[in-house]
């Protein structure tokens, strides 16, 4: 099979020139088949990133200056905040993640993308559903549950879009030319199997009362379990070894990591309701499952770390590796934090505070989003056939994002913890728990603004590549000259 390496072929000498040329030709063909759908998904994802980030900034400043734009109903905090959440998750992460999946599917199956028409339809429907849902929520039609605010018409459109996307991907997978299914594909295949079922059950309106609350948070955490986290892990498992040029440290660990992930993570949902009016045993089960997550997370962390060990200097010149390593380390951090955060002792303080928000952004941004950035920096030149013209813009993007999220996480973690302690202290008037969060909320607004600027820079740079603008490069957009690194 062309491109499929055995131990005999470990060195390039084992591969004939003809095989190499053939392989490259096939790869170019595969990339070409993936180009249009991938660019469509990536571009719309980045558009929603900019929109969603702006909405987040607006929501954040409204908590600093509550009367700002206070007479305009569509921009009230209670409407902007859910639209921010829905557009960055179902918009940016889902669309950019789908773009990454399309490209990865072609590469990992070593075959052209099948049924691309379905992908175009999916992208159009998905964007339509997002637009419809966002407008409806802003006008006041909300489903009322967190993560499920889009009214039924928008949800149906998005579900349909996802099914079309999955159909094309499964069809491509069925036509694969490789004997071995790489670990990234396990996560991708599982996610595409899980998410439609999850989304349909959650939007079907089957429950009420606290039973519905259980369903709500089973869904809320499972959306992370079955869709967002697999996107991040699929990316990390591919790009870290690919860019460094060494295989994953231990495939066995990868196997253990995947199945323990699937088994434990699905039970986590009720850790969002600790202390709430639900059967104690159910909440305890979720807390235990949250702690069990140490197993898959450690497996992934060891795998990635040992793969990169001794080669981390490459982050100095590879934008992709820089973003992806940041993301992979953040995965370990957010998961460890999450496991401990699920315990009753920590929850007593942090539940209902901004601490939770900080944790959520560590996961969705520092982990998934940063990996998606890295993936896009790798994928786009290969399909657009144009290298990123301005490496300094990539640097600006990285540093604003990194500083932004670290400051965001730091400020809300500290602020939220203090808020929780104050709330649990009987003599402290409630308004004082609000007052003490003031400076931390300002810090969050500033961090969010930094991140939004980074996204605008990224979007501009992305557009430059699509339009083939800027200097034409024949070498990769590295941060430092090649000889400096090779000499190390």
């Amino acid at each position, binding site marked *: 099979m*062309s*491109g*499929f*390496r*055995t131990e005999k*072929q*470990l*060195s*390039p000498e084992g*591969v004939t020139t003809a*095989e*190499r040329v*053939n*392989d*490259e030709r096939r790869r170019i063909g595969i990339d070409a088949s993936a180009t249009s759908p991938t660019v469509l998904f990536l571009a719309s994802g980045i558009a929603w990133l900019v929109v969603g980030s702006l909405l987040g900034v607006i929501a954040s400043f409204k908590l600093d200056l509550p009367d700002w734009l206070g007479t305009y109903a569509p921009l009230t905090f209670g409407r902007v905040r859910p639209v921010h959440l829905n557009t960055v998750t179902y918009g940016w992460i889902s669309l950019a993640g789908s773009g990454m999946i399309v490209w990865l599917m072609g*590469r*990992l199956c070593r075959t052209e993308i099948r049924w691309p028409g379905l992908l175009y339809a999916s992208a159009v429907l998905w964007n339509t559903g997002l637009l419809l849902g966002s407008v409806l929520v802003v*006008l*006041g*039609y909300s489903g*009322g549950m967190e993560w499920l605010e889009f009214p039924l018409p928008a949800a149906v459109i998005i579900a349909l879009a996802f099914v079309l996307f999955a159909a094309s991907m499964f069809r491509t997978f069925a036509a694969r030319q490789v*004997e*071995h*299914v*790489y*670990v990234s594909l396990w996560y991708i295949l599982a996610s595409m199997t899980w998410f439609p079922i999850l989304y349909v059950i959650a939007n079907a*309106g*089957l429950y*009420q*009362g606290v*039973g519905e609350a259980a369903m709500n948070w089973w869904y809320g955490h499972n959306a992370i379990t079955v869709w967002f986290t697999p996107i991040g892990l699929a990316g990390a498992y*591919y790009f870290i070894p*690919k*860019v*460094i*040029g*060494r*295989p*994953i440290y231990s*495939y066995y660990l990868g*196997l253990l990591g995947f199945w323990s992930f699937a*088994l434990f993570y699905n039970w986590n949902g009720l850790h969002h309701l600790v202390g709430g009016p639900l059967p104690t*045993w159910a909440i305890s089960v979720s807390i235990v499952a949250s702690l069990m997550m140490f197993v898959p997370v450690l497996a992934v962390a060891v795998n990635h770390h040992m793969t990169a060990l001794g*080669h981390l200097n490459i982050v100095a010149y*590879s934008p992709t*590796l820089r973003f992806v390593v940041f993301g992979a380390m953040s995965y370990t951090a957010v998961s460890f934090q999450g496991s401990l955060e699920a315990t009753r002792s920590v929850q007593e303080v942090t539940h209902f505070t901004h601490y939770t928000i900080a944790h959520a952004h560590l996961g969705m941004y520092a982990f998934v989003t940063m990996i998606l950035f890295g993936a896009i920096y*790798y994928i786009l*030149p*290969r399909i657009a056939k144009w290298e990123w013209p301005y*490496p*300094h813009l990539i640097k600006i993007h990285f540093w604003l994002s990194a500083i932004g999220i670290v400051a965001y996480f730091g400020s809300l973690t500290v602020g939220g913890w203090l808020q929780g302690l104050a709330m649990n202290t009987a003599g402290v008037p409630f308004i004082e728990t609000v007052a003490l969060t003031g400076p931390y909320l300002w810090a969050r607004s500033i961090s969010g603004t930094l991140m939004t600027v980074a996204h605008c820079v990224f979007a501009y740079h992305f557009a430059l590549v699509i339009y083939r603008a800027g200097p034409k*490069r*024949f*070498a*990769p957009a*590295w*941060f*430092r*000259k*090649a000889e400096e690194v090779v000499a190390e």
Partner: protein
Amino acid sequence: MFLSVYILSPSSDPFHRHFRISRETQTALGPPSTRLPMTLLPAAVAIVIVALLGASLALAAFFWALRTKQFSVKQMNEGAYVIFDCGDEVGTPTDQMFKKPHPSADERIPD
């Protein structure tokens, strides 16, 4: 199983114009008394049975995989290499699109 009942009610709010969609079923249905009632002990028994079934399935799958040699060392190693292309040298970073840098390329890579 409950069906959502959409209730339309008028509003004077300019952004609502004529109607609002809501999803409460309170006037249509009462508490879920039509369901099979279950106290803690039967629930615990049921969940233990389900868990045992699940665990047996998992163990069965594990032993099947061992028996059919899914976990051969060779296969595992090959799996990790599937991401590399023919021309990739193992150990060399691959974040580059063009194999031969243009002589003037270095001038265009600012720090």
